[in-house]
């Protein structure tokens, strides 16, 4: 599971076990993502999420999803977060981890 949004948001709260890569809205973030997954089998289940903004305004998840598909990954899922991570995950009492 990979968080593809902001590090400042990730450090406050993230899904336990998820990795931070860098915002996929930037080329640097996409490069980090490609580097992270390059050695993985293309059938590996990868779950992406962000939660920075409302789903239809998120600048990160689509570039990340597109990048993984372009690399040949066939089992990519994106966690749907309707409004933001705080409202749709943390406030609902789902598991949360903090820090780097």
């Amino acid at each position, binding site marked *: 599971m990979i968080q593809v949004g*902001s590090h*400042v*948001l990730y*450090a406050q709260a993230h899904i336990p076990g998820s990795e931070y890569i860098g915002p996929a809205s930037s080329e640097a973030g996409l490069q980090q993502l490609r580097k992270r997954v390059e050695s993985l089998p293309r059938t590996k289940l990868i779950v992406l999420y962000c939660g*920075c*903004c*409302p789903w239809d305004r998120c600048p990160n998840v689509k570039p990340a999803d597109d990048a993984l598909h372009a690399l040949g990954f066939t089992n990519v899922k994106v966690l749907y977060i309707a*409004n933001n991570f*705080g*409202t749709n995950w943390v406030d609902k009492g789902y598991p949360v981890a903090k820090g780097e």
Partner: protein
Amino acid sequence: MAFATIALTLGALVAVYFVRRAHTPIGVSSGTTNHQLAPDFALPTPDGRDLQLSSYRGKVVLLDFWATWCDPCREEIPHFVDLQQKYGERGLQIIGVSMDDSAEPVRPFYLRFHMNYPVVMGTAKTGELYGGILGLPISFLIGRDGRIYTKHIGATDASVFEREIKHLIETP
């Protein structure tokens, strides 16, 4: 006589309506009803100067958590520029807290959007002070007494901010 009674009753009802409306707390639906003191912080601006929130006590502060990559934030900022221009001399101070991972994109953004209010670089700790900034934009309206009166999660219409600002400006 019956007409006079009806008129008096209606008049009384109208008076009650307007009195209640004048005392209806604003922003309750998105507000903090306990009006806690806004947590103080000292954060750097993109050019390295420090800004202390408490130095703005006595002003109405609109504290906006945003980021350069956040589309809804980018839509709000021109309205904030307008509000700062319009109400700055009456005691409004807008402060932007950038939640970008570095100041690098913030400096050109500041110039491109003609921002006329200070911006500081927020951290995870800043976010935690304010109850967790786990989505953007999130903004707080702080009264002259340093207390938080409303919190808005997500992009908010400028007219809502203006109404709340005017109310707080007029409140000692």
